[in-house]
């Protein structure tokens, strides 16, 4: 069985789940009796998705589309506790997603449940260390100055799903995007280039790309069902 972890307001995740027969796991499911997570002791681990209790061993793959649990999603919790409960749920999901033995796309990092929450300069820095062509990033913060961040502006997108990539670019750019995804430890990544030419420069990347295009949605599901696509 596949799961999609997402906000209760995320229509694209709900659409993906419906298309691929996956159960939708939203923050509301973390307020349902049935979760069991053991550490330092063996025991039957269970989860809750769509209000149903599931043995963790039945889960074949998880798509993560929730960077953290927001207090906004916890209307069923008394208002003064919403922020605390949101932090507790986020912390729990970090541990749970990290230890799942099945494919998880993307695995969480200590700061974000969907993968690395890197700013553009970290992507550019990583790409440069891989020897890829990059456009330098300049960020500044002045109380009386212009916006703190340069806009990426027009760009060409390459979306990586494990071993595959999608985008109207030469093979060499697709391979570069994949190298960046591997370096970042992500299976799902949209890489922004400043053009579609072979010498295009990396501008940044996003581990939370649009999964609405059918070919990307299907590739994500195939990866979760079968592991590596190649």
């Amino acid at each position, binding site marked *: 069985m596949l799961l999609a972890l997402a906000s209760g307001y995320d229509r694209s995740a709900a659409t993906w789940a419906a298309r691929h027969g996956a159960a939708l796991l939203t923050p509301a499911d*973390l*307020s*349902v*009796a*049935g*979760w*069991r*997570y*053991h*550490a*330092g*002791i063996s*025991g039957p681990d*269970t989860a*809750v998705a769509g209000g149903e209790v599931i043995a963790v061993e039945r889960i074949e793959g998880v798509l993560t589309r929730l960077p953290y649990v927001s207090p906004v999603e916890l209307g*069923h*919790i008394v208002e003064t506790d919403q922020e*605390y*409960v949101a*932090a*507790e*749920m*986020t*912390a*729990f999901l*970090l*541990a749970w997603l*990290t*230890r799942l033995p099945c494919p998880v796309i993307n695995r969480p*990092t*200590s*700061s974000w449940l969907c993968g690395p929450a890197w*700013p553009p*300069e*970290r992507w*550019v*820095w*990583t790409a*440069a*260390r*891989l020897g890829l062509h*990059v*456009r*330098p*990033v*300049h*960020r*500044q*913060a*002045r*109380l009386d*100055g212009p916006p*703190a961040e340069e806009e990426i502006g027009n760009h060409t997108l390459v979306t990586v799903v494990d071993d595959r990539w999608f985008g109207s670019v030469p093979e060499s750019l697709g391979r570069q995007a994949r190298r960046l995804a*591997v*370096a*970042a*430890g992500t299976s799902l990544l949209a890489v922004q280039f400043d053009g579609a030419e072979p010498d295009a420069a990396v501008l940044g990347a996003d581990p939370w790309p649009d999964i609405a295009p059918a070919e990307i949605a299907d590739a994500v599901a195939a990866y979760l069902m079968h592991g590596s696509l190649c």
Partner: protein
Amino acid sequence: MLILLWGVASEAPLAAVREALERQGAPVAMLDQREMLDTTIDIRVGAGEVGGAIRVRDQRIDLAAVTGVYVRPYSAAELPSVTAAGPASAAWRHVLAVEAILYSWLELTPALVVSRPEAMGTNNSKPYQLELIREAGFCIPETLVTTEPEAARDFWDRHGDVIYKSVSGVRSIVSRMRPEHAARLANVSWCPTQFQRYIAGREHRVHVVGDEVFACEVHSEADDYRYPGEQPVEIRACTLPREVEDRCRRLATALGLPVAGIDLRRHHDGAWYCFEVNPCPAFIYYEHAADLPISTAIARLLAGGAEASAPTPS
């Protein structure tokens, strides 16, 4: 060589490290959070380049010249000048922007950073960190995180003596389960709640600073000696078995922390349990109580200069 200190200048650990650096004659630049509204920052990152500068009124700090950083900031939103201005203000946005750029630079600079933000993040989830602790070779207490009241009750029945504590780093106080808590077990269905077998034994606090290890024993009957109530607490310096010291060093290294505060307990059967690693320990309490030169060691580590500590793409 230049050591950058970031936080509130009067905060005890930061002030102690600054004093120790000045005693050692190391050049120090203080970035005081109380001056954030007078602070500007810019960074530039490209092929082979991580540069930029911080300006606070007339002072300019060249980020490329920084060889060591000690990081102890409060949340920007807690600063009085920012709180007073409110979330819709330009001041609020500015302080958050400065903070975001600084955090980003801390991940990329080749300087020695105590500690990089991503490494400090492991403490945001105790069960997540517990797995890393186990992988480093320490015993960990039997743990259940659950929304199932019956599962919590079964765990309590099986282990007899059980504590509960937060899953995240928020409101992190350890409490023993007592009979009067039974009626509240139904509440766990609202939020995953963490229970652990109580491990009887002598509590130890260990500070790892680079290769140096400073250990002390904690003598207290409180459930959580950091919040002892009326219970007395005594802290005494001690020496750990060599193998346990090495395990502490390995754990700090595995978590990417040049400085770490490690909570251990030696069980009556001799096993060493580890409960948590504080990535940004407020060590002053232990330094004073057990006469341990922790701030001097941190200063020495920082003055030791840059190392190849920047994250490397795999």
